[in-house]
């Protein structure tokens, strides 16, 4: 197991380096002069030269790259052009809000999807199954930038039950968490249904039933337990969708997280902050994938990468 973990950790290093390199090169993709783009056409040459020096863009490319990687290792990603605040601090301040939203949405997804998937599998081919499957496909097809506003229209505007935007108590969290959790719930429910169905076909379930185990127990105790491995995997894979979905959801509900910070920084052409947000989200995703793989290895001792 130790070797497996070490190997998996080592495999992550080149990916992180690749991600960092890509994010570093982003600013050099800006058409024309990035500094001129940030300051606008009317900026004085002295101003342009000053910002260029501040961003280090006047140095040779390899020096910039080394400085970027060196800073990254020390947690120094430069300062925001707009507020002068260190990028790391600006991003860290927004992190708890995004984490809160992500955890809440995953909770919503699990609480809805797993019972729905298990019930659909247990009553396969019935109206219950049909309803659950259709709901799941709807959940996948309805974009969250439509679901969010719809929920806001119904529950905030029409019924007046919940606040339409901002972060505060639990009431503020409900609509964003459902918006972000719904597509995840849909994918999870489909996966749970398929996975439980697969297990129900196995001989050991049949054997348990033959020995007089009740149908409910066979589904919950035998089939469901073994179907957890693919469910955990899909949960890990879908974490990426949660992160991207957070960018959209935070924008809809004015939720003060990293996603909203990213979009605001793009509007202000605050490239260091844009880079910081992108790096943080991508690194979080890589870490989540790593954890999923490790959990996978722990849940199923047969799985080892060699």
């Amino acid at each position: 197991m130790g070797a497996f973990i070490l190997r998996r950790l080592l495999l992550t290093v080149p990916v992180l380096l690749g991600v960092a390199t890509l994010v570093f090169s982003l600013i050099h993709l800006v058409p024309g002069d990035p500094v001129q783009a940030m300051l606008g056409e009317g900026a004085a040459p002295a101003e342009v030269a000053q910002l260029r020096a501040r961003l280090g863009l006047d140095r040779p490319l390899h020096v910039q790259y080394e400085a970027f990687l060196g800073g990254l290792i020390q947690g120094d990603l430069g300062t925001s052009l707009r507020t002068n605040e260190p990028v790391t601090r600006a991003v860290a301040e927004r992190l708890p809000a995004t984490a809160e939203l992500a955890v809440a949405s995953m909770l919503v997804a699990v609480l809805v999807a797993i019972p729905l998937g298990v019930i659909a599998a247990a009553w396969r081919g019935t109206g219950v199954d049909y309803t659950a499957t259709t709901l799941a496909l709807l959940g996948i097809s309805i974009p969250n930038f439509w679901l969010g506003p719809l929920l806001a229209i119904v529950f905030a505007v029409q019924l007046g039950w919940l606040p339409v935007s901002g972060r505060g108590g639990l009431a503020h969290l409900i609509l964003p968490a459902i918006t972000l959790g719904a597509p995840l719930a849909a994918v999870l429910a489909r996966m749970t249904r398929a996975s439980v169905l697969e297990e129900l076909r196995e001989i050991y379930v049949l054997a348990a039933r033959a020995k007089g185990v009740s149908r409910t127990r066979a589904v919950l105790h035998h089939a469901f337990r073994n179907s957890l491995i693919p469910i955990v995997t899909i949960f890990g894979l879908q974490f990426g969708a949660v992160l991207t979905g957070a960018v959209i959801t935070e924008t809809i509900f004015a939720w003060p997280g990293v996603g909203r910070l990213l979009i605001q920084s793009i509007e202000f052409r605050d490239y260091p902050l844009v880079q910081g947000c992108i790096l943080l989200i991508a690194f979080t995703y890589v870490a989540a994938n790593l954890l999923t793989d490790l959990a996978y290895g722990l849940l199923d001792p047969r799985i080892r990468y060699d």
Partner: protein
Amino acid sequence: MTEPPAAGGRRLRDVVGGPMAVAGLVVVVLAAVAALFAPWLSPYDPSAQDLALRLAGPGWQHPFGLDELGRDILSRVLAGARISFLVGVVVVSVSSVVGSVLGALAGYFGGWFDELVSRLIDILLAFPGLLLAIALVAVLGPSLMHVLFALSIIGWVGYARLVRGQVLRAREIEFVQAARALGAGTPRILFRHVLPTALPAVVVQATLGMAGAIISEAALSFLGLGVQPPTPSWGTMLNAGIAHLLDAPHLTIFPGLAIALLVLGFNFLGDGLRDAADPKSVQA
């Protein structure tokens, strides 16, 4: 591998895989026709403004109502369909061709090229979903061209992975080895024998990819990073609707409904095609 029965001898629902898939196909075809003939079907010019009627709700004259500048929403939804299909077709074509070719070459030749493509795939997959597209459009500037470029950059990866895997498997199949033993050249083996085995999977991926590209364009435009006003895009229209959730919810309802329906259509169709192409069901 047995030859499948001729398509002419099968009913449509067997080919696309069930009644849901047929429903999906119908939605997609209707939407495509609407997009194609939008200029003739639209009751009004999608950019004509009637400021006196701004934000007016749905009625006989304007079935979907009017937007914040008094433009007919039905006409704009129809015009937006053209953008959605344009993005879907371009992104899926570019990414499926580029991805399939790179994946096939990587899987067939192995070695340093495979290593290079695989590492590139790993790095691109380290960015969740749309994030890289958001980053690219953020630095390149918002425009339709940049959306097409960014979505293709992230789109080819899925096809490359898929085809690479299929090719690795096909390389070992007897008829491919037989072709090689008979002296067939590499391009012939690759394009005549190996790639066709991957085709059904690519078609399924492309159908679901249409849904993905359409949602992604709408998401980028919603975030203000995609198609710029006054060009009507469903995402841009939703973005404008956010400011009027209180007084004019119809700004949000109709463009969103259009996205959800079309995406649902492609998803139903893709799911059906996948079931129809599933080797397990073919063998049974």
